[in-house]
């Protein structure tokens, strides 16, 4: 398969980037998207050119490292799929594919397709945790959790923190990410004691990091590789209100 690639090249955060054209001549349809880029990079290195930098780690859709804007969609055209799970068979021979980094003020481009997403880490550090006493593991059945609650918390916890929601949003809002993280704790009894402080501090950090606010367009939900639902956002709003009137 022959693919025409338009890839964003940028040397450093301070330098202007631009698109550069590349051709991959014998891409295999069974390759993953990242393998296709590896293939291109091998070729570039062989020719003595600079390899294209991109983030990746697990390559199985669980770490959230891969973060490409492919033809204007975070993680490409497939729904519920991270870039590393996207396959070349989803494209046609001769296709032109535009590959860009995620774009947001809060995600500055470091180099080529790599962006700095430590803003998410700072939001998590602000309150995205639950404090427990260490020691022996408690008896598993001492805290009973309903099936539906457990499932909902698990659905929220499926967020891999990749930042696709920010990249998809016209306001570069991180609401879907923050709401998933707030929800995964707020739903469970273990997360309840710290829920007010958690939501307040995470939202404050989110605002500080220059993420935009939510316009309820739903683009984030459509782009999310883990299909995190907008319902989490309503829950975040509820949690915020609750935190401001109680405690």
């Amino acid at each position, binding site marked *: 398969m022959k693919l025409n690639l338009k890839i964003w090249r940028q040397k450093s955060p301070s330098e202007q980037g631009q698109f550069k054209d590349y051709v991959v001549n014998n891409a295999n349809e069974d390759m993953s998207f990242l393998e296709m880029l590896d293939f291109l990079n091998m070729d570039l290195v062989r020719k003595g050119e600079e390899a294209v930098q991109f983030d990746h780690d697990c390559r199985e859709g669980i770490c959230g490292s891969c973060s490409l804007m492919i033809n204007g969609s*975070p993680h490409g055209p497939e729904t519920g799929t991270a870039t590393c799970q996207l396959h070349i068979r989803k494209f046609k021979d001769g296709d032109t594919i535009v590959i860009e980094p995620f774009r947001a003020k809060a995600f500055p481009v470091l180099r080529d397709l790599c962006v700095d997403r430590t803003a998410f880490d700072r939001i998590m550090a602000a309150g995205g945790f639950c404090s427990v006493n260490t020691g022996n593991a408690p008896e598993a059945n001492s805290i009973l959790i309903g099936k539906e609650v457990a499932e909902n918390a698990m659905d929220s916890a499926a967020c891999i923190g990749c930042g696709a929601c920010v990249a*998809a949003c016209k306001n570069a809002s991180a609401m879907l990410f923050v709401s998933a993280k707030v929800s995964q704790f707020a739903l469970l009894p273990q997360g309840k004691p710290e829920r007010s402080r958690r939501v307040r501090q995470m939202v*404050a950090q989110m605002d500080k990091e*220059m993420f935009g606010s939510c316009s309820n*367009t739903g683009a984030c939900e459509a782009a999310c590789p883990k299909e995190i639902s907008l319902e989490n956002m*309503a829950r*975040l709003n509820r949690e915020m209100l609750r935190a401001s*009137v109680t405690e």
Partner: protein
Amino acid sequence: MMKCKSFLSSSVGQKFLVALTGLGLSGFVLTHMLGNLLLFVGPNAYNLYGHKLTSTPLIYVAEVVLVTLFVVHVGLTLKLQKANRASRPIAPSQLPNVCVKRASFASRTMALSGLMILSFAILHLVTFKFGPYYAVTVDGVEMRDLYKLVQESFQKEWYTGFYLVCMVILFTHLSHGFTAAFQSLGLSNTHNTWLKRIGFVFALVVAGGFFSQPLYMYLAHH
């Protein structure tokens, strides 16, 4: 108190206020539209209704509340909109594909449709509330002949057409805004998915009602 202040200074709290004031304004446009249906009944009914409405002192309270709702709704939105623009380093014309494809047109153009409605509302007040005063006597009471003013205004094709276009814009604004408000207030969940459709129905009723009135006045008196 401190908690409340920090809530209202957060983006979430400000969206909450935008939603709350938006719902307040939605209530206003709905009652305004229902009241105006008296145009279909006839001049006396319509003028009497206008007279009753404006002759109670409560109207001043209502006006202050309305202006406050408008100021908070528009002011906060502009502030948030400015921050949103700063959050995204690319021009709105280069929005990601997924945003253009999956986010409804109405949802992406709320600020624009809102500003258009605001300009329309000002023009509307100038034409009617602060427009020419015609007097009429109904049941021995002298009052303002608003019916005549309405009828006169909608004799011009371009003016009627302009109103109809504005009502389409109001429709798009309400169709997204009414539903989105419940989301911002944290009221939507998996058990009330009908809330997702209610904005469309509400917008259809309000804008449809408002659409029919100038159209009727134009057609009936031509």
